[in-house]
């Protein structure tokens, strides 16, 4: 499973972990692709410990992030999620100035 976090979007770590849990991600490899380094990277890593983080340069588009993440994904079935989809844009996603 690939979670794509484009630039200027943030996902609250606990919401991301919960979103992955309800999407059945406990038994799958999770790859989180971010454009730029998230301000809350440490918190994300704590909450979604098994996930592999892929940090692309700031400004990388969502489509490019998806393509990049696809090249790192190893499974036969790769599900690509936008961070906003996991728990609704109003809760999980906040637009901020300079972090993903």
């Amino acid at each position, binding site marked *: 499973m690939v979670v794509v976090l484009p630039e200027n979007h943030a996902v609250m770590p606990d919401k991301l972990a919960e979103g992955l849990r309800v999407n059945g991600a406990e038994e799958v490899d999770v790859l989180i692709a971010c454009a730029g380094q998230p301000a809350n990277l440490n918190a994300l890593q704590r909450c979604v410990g098994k996930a592999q983080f892929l940090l692309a340069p700031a400004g990388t588009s969502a489509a490019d992030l998806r393509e990049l993440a696809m090249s790192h994904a190893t*499974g036969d*079935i790769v*599900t690509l999620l936008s961070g906003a989809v996991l728990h609704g844009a109003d809760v999980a996603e906040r637009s901020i100035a300079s972090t993903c």
Partner: protein
Amino acid sequence: MLRQIDLSVVVAVADGAATLARSLQSIIESDFREIEIELIVVDDASDDGSPAIAARYADTVVRLTSRRSGRAYARNRGAEIARGRLVAFIDQDIAVKPETLRLMVEALDKHPGLDAVAATHDHRASAGNFMSEYWSVLLSVGESSHAGVGGGFGSGCGVVRRSSLASSGMYDEWRFGTGTLEGVELGQRLLRTGHDVLLTRDLRVAQLRRWTVRAAFRETFTRSALLARSLGYQQTRASSPADVVFTLTRPALPLVGALSTVALLGAFMPGRDGVLITAVGVLLAVIADARTVGEIARLRGAFFALRAIPVHLCLQAVSVAGLCSGWLMRDAVGDPRPDAATQAYAEVGVEMWPPVPRPR
């Protein structure tokens, strides 16, 4: 909470990098309104970077990495992971119009007795060269002449109820490894098992692939051979030859094929006799297939139809050669089967995913 999906769009791709992005773009730009969709791309062992392109658009990308198994097999794997109550199958070289998929879903919702809807090809191609234009107009004329309930599911874009697909046994991945007639066969099986299939000329999709003379002849030969060998020419309903070679009925096909062959042979004969034979052969073949030539002229003009006649006649001759080849293969070898290793795995019944191709 998992989203409730109305429509799962499955695109099987094999080395489709040239057209895949435009095809997927047309799908995600569709006007779905309230319809929730998921886009699943199943990559059948491509080595041209198709999975990376798919990742830019799709919700799920399935990679079948071991070896190429055919469109029927790939579509079945997509259908297995689909969550929608309806499943759309779209070819890698097809662009849908913004309203096409929504109207197909609405047709199925409005008519509970209907189990599958297929769109027909637009007579205009995207590629722009003459062969692509001719191929598109041929598909359009052939499919339009058989449109209606019972018209078949063999076009490049169709939507089927997931329950009907499952109950009819899904695509025949055992016999259709080459990926040409699996949709025709599924459509016939759906009809045989009491499911209604609508091929509608009101909904059109566009071909994106750039066709060459060689590719068109090869496709026609393969389809015709597979029709005779695998579908069983005599067992199929009367319009099936038209599904395959697009325009001709069962009695007209051998006639036009024979006349085209005579015309071709005449072209290699020296002297005025050869010219005369060719002229008479061409004239009779055109008269025998006047309805198609007339339709081409109506859609694209007389000049286009005149340009198309030589290619059209050659295509019918190729089709007859393919049918004869299929008959011979059927009598000499029998129905197509996967290789010995696949048959052995299937016999043992090894449980794995993706599975080995399974007989129906």
